């Protein structure tokens, strides 16, 4: 039963995205514009700066991609989900869907950014892992803050001020790992950082599942 609900809800997320194509096209265009603005602002980019700018692009794009997950559906439809689905299952589908969405977006951002600003990546497997872990961490945190912000009055501003400070531990770790993948810093014991990142993700994920029913209930 739960599995069926889960599958249906996940399918619904994709269907919704497919039907409202302006949302996804908007995000794609947002990535392109952001990359070009950053590129015009700093034409010659050294690897350390490349890394910082890349993660800034990712941060802004991810926030904008995730913020709609709770705002786009109307109150009455939310009420319907509340009756048919378990909040934890609903949240899980949102997090999985957003992780996949952010993965696609990060691949896209990496592609366009490396075309215009060069590609200083040395260690591709590590960089890919960083992108995966980044998408996952961003997805958990931003889905959670989006669910809170959606209930408040000025959700756009609130989304930013709630998300930016709490994403910092994840963002700093990601930037450090990606600096290692770019060989900006040498560190052979980066496994410890990956474990730290996974631990932070695990704590946040658990808390999100425990706390979401309280956000959801209205």
């Amino acid at each position, binding site marked *: 039963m739960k599995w069926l609900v889960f599958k249906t809800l996940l399918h619904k997320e994709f269907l919704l995205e497919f039907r409202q194509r302006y949302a996804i096209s908007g995000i794609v265009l947002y990535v392109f514009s952001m990359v070009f603005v950053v590129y015009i602002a700093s034409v010659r980019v050294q690897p350390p700066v490349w890394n910082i700018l890349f993660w800034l692009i990712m941060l802004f794009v991810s926030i904008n991609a995730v913020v709609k997950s709770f705002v786009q559906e109307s109150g009455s439809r939310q009420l319907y989900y509340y009756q048919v689905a378990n909040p934890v299952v609903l949240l899980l589908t949102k997090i999985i869907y957003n992780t996949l969405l952010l993965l696609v977006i990060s691949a896209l951002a990496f592609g366009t950014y490396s075309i215009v600003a060069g590609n200083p990546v040395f260690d591709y497997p590590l960089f890919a892992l960083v992108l995966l872990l980044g998408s996952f961490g961003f997805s958990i945190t931003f889905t*959670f803050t989006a669910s*809170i912000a959606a*209930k*408040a*009055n*000025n959700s756009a501003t*609130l989304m930013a*001020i*709630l998300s*930016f*400070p*709490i994403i*910092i*531990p994840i963002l*700093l*770790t990601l930037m*450090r790992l990606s600096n290692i993948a770019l060989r900006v810093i040498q560190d052979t014991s980066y496994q410890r*950082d990956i474990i*730290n990142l996974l*631990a*932070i993700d695990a*704590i*946040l994920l658990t*808390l*999100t599942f425990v*706390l979401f029913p*309280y*956000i959801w*209930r*209205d």
Partner: protein
Amino acid sequence: MWWKITSVLLLVYTFTLGMLVPLRPGILTVSPESGLTRQSTVLTISGYNAHFTQGEGQTRVWLTYDDENAILAHRVKALSDTQLEAEFQLPANLPKGEATMVLNCIVDNPADGTSVLPNAFQLKLDSTTMQEYDPTWKAHPVEKLNVKKGFTYPYRNVIYETIRNTYFHVPMWFVLLFLLLASATYSVIYLLNPKPEYDSKASAYAETGLLFGLLGLVTGMLWAHYAWGKAWSNDIKQITTAVALLIYMAYFILRSSFDEPEKGARLSAVYNIFAFATLIPLLYVVPRMFASLHPGATGSPAFGGQDLDNTMRAVFYPAIIGWTLLGFWMTSLRIRAKRIEDKLGGLD
């Protein structure tokens, strides 16, 4: 009631002892700062809180290379309590055959105990010809050191008198953690049992926690101004702390952006718990991954064992308890003020 009195007593104790107990004698400078091998050189040593005239005749001065290699001054004269003249016959070579080496200076007498100035004197080889190992290096090892009795704080180069800030800057972070933990706990209690008083307690604890965070940041910046040369040097802990304060400011904004108080209280409680969970990696995990100017950086963000000696512990631990009790006292007053505000608001 008793804990409020305890808090006041402990803080009076902290302020009195923290401010009045003198530092142990130490060495401020050694001049000249360099010399050539085989020279005879007279070093002028200026001491801090020292009593060189009292130890006249018993003062010994060494320039040391490591545990085994040291040269003893053959003539020591106290010019005043804080000025000492020591004459050295510098050996013919350096112990490991280097061309240049930085030596530490050790002054020892019964009145002041032992003081050390690391990297005090640079010794250069006077010629490039290889020399036999000079036995003078092992002739007078550093031994039979005197220990200064009495209640004093350690003398440390770079921080000097600002070592007293340990009793004010460091406890702030302990109090911050306790208060924010209390705040998160009340948020959990509120979610389990939604009574408005728990929500107002959670918010009051977060407010005082934020205040102590600001105080910790300010005392830290004052300290950094003296020890690191500038108040803000983008040290990783300064940054993560500023971010931690931003999280709690966001919490207060979130609290005020709901029309229905019950909904606002519930969602803020959820955010508060989440914020506390990100605060721990922010303050205790992330700083370990980056280089920091803080003592015990890279590895442990807290104190190392040798940073705190027993006299400092005797003030440091009471200071933590005193400040913590003060934090909880301030919060209890804030909670009462909020209750009165709510009652007055209800009358309107």
